[in-house]
């Protein structure tokens, strides 16, 4: 299986659905150590991304991810709009024609690099990077060992969820949670939580 245009669109659509369904949990996580709007913002941004896919009818999976990224930047606001938006745009640019597991691994790495570049966070800062970086590593390792797209995506989603769990003892160094200092310890990071959901969406839509 490859990440064809329909699957790329299905990924964004499914991510929008599960973020919407989990909006109150994300908002609850954000209320504990941030300002309590992550679920609502991302649900609105992903809904805009889905609308932008319906309107533009992209002709390639790369263009689909880029259109989704533009929708996220245009409608999400906050930090997550530019971060996820840039991530999806970079992934889409990188994707090109190589849409097998290796190609998608490269695209996910481009997503990670883009988010690191504009957000300035590194692993351990208690941000979405703590879910995304291990997810990308797991995806690429699986793909390198010959896993197909779905198996690699499952490995990535599992790694993202483990990365999310690992944010609990961390003290935030970036984002609004950083204002709490030591009081940010003991909570899951909401950005890592939404990243885990987005990676799970990819695993679901690539299932045979």
């Amino acid at each position, binding site marked *: 299986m490859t990440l064809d245009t329909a699957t790329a669109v299905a990924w964004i659509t499914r991510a929008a659905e599960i973020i919407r369904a989990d909006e109150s949990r994300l908002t609850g996580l954000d*209320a504990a150590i941030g300002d309590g709007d992550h679920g609502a913002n991302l649900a609105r941004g992903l809904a805009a991304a889905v609308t932008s896919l319906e309107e533009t009818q992209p002709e390639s999976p790369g263009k689909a991810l880029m259109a989704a990224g533009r929708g996220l*930047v245009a409608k999400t*606001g906050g930090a997550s709009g530019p971060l996820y938006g840039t991530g999806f745009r970079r992934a889409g640019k990188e994707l090109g024609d190589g849409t097998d597991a290796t190609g998608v691994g490269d695209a996910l790495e481009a997503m990670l690099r883009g988010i690191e570049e*504009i*957000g300035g966070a590194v692993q351990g800062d208690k941000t979405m990077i703590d879910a995304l970086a291990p997810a990308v590593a797991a995806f690429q390792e699986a793909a390198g060992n010959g896993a197909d797209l779905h198996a690699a995506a499952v490995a990535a989603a599992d790694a993202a969820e483990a990365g999310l769990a690992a944010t609990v003892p961390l003290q935030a*160094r970036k984002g609004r949670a950083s*204002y709490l200092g030591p009081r940010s310890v003991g909570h899951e990071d909401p950005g890592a939580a939404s990243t885990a959901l987005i990676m799970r969406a990819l695993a679901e839509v690539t299932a045979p």
Partner: protein
Amino acid sequence: MKKLINSPDAVIPDALRGLAAAHPGLNVDVENRIISRAERTPGKVGLVSGGGSGHEPLHGGYVGRGMLDAAAPGEVYTSPVPDQILAATEAADAGAGVLHIVKNYTGDVLNFRMAAELAEDDDVRVVSVVINDDVAVEDSTFTAGRRGVGGTIVAEKVAGAAAEEGADLDTVAQLAREVNERSRSFAIALHAGTVPAAGKPGFELAGNEVEIGVGIHGEPGRQRGEFAPVKDLVGYALDAIHADLPVSGDVLVIMNGQGGTPLIELYGAFAEAADWLQGHGATVARNLVGNYITSLDQAGFSITVTSLTDELVRLWDAPVSTPALRWGV
């Protein structure tokens, strides 16, 4: 939740419609969420600010002669998006470039940066000044850094006055930076505000607790403290400010309410602040007492202290005509 709203989704458009009705001298684009001055002065540096809604009168209430040219309000407690900031920048551009005054939050900084890049593509020169005056946050190069709070109002007023006088973009930007360097703020909350879409307060405090070093988005502060008389709470805040940037000479003080604090209490708090500052050898040369940068219905206060120069006093005193600040006109 009881609020004077029609529905959580309608809060921002309804408030913008009201702003337009109350201030016909402003252009209020309810659809695209941009507040701008009706008239443009050719060759004047444009000033744009913006940020999440819920902090009114910041920023839309500071649009007008002698202050901002345009403001972009985001969703409640959420930064505006790049296209919106770009449109505000274009509305403010009168050929001499545009200053972005940005409060230091990751979302605001990122969205303003993307908008500035888009504006530069359209040949509008943009300089950004990031305000980070909140001493409650530990500053470090490894973190998101300090938040921008009450010092933003002083920066917008001083830079706006300089732009009105015809100063160029670099001069106006430098004045905003100088205000930021000379300003420090600290806030204490008695109870959290309620975001309309969330329906419940951002944090819960027991009857004898206060949130110390609280931010402007209902995000919890650096610690919980014990409720105390206003003299002690104001003293705690000023101690924190003084420890970071010792106060002396002429200062501007903003005794700001967070949205849910009666003015009678703010005046009591200001009396304590004036006594404290006098006891530390500083003189309150200028002041504001009231709701200037709020957090919906959060109860509590923030204090901003700006160490003044003759030039800053002159620019502060210059005429201003906006919904929230108006003098000399």
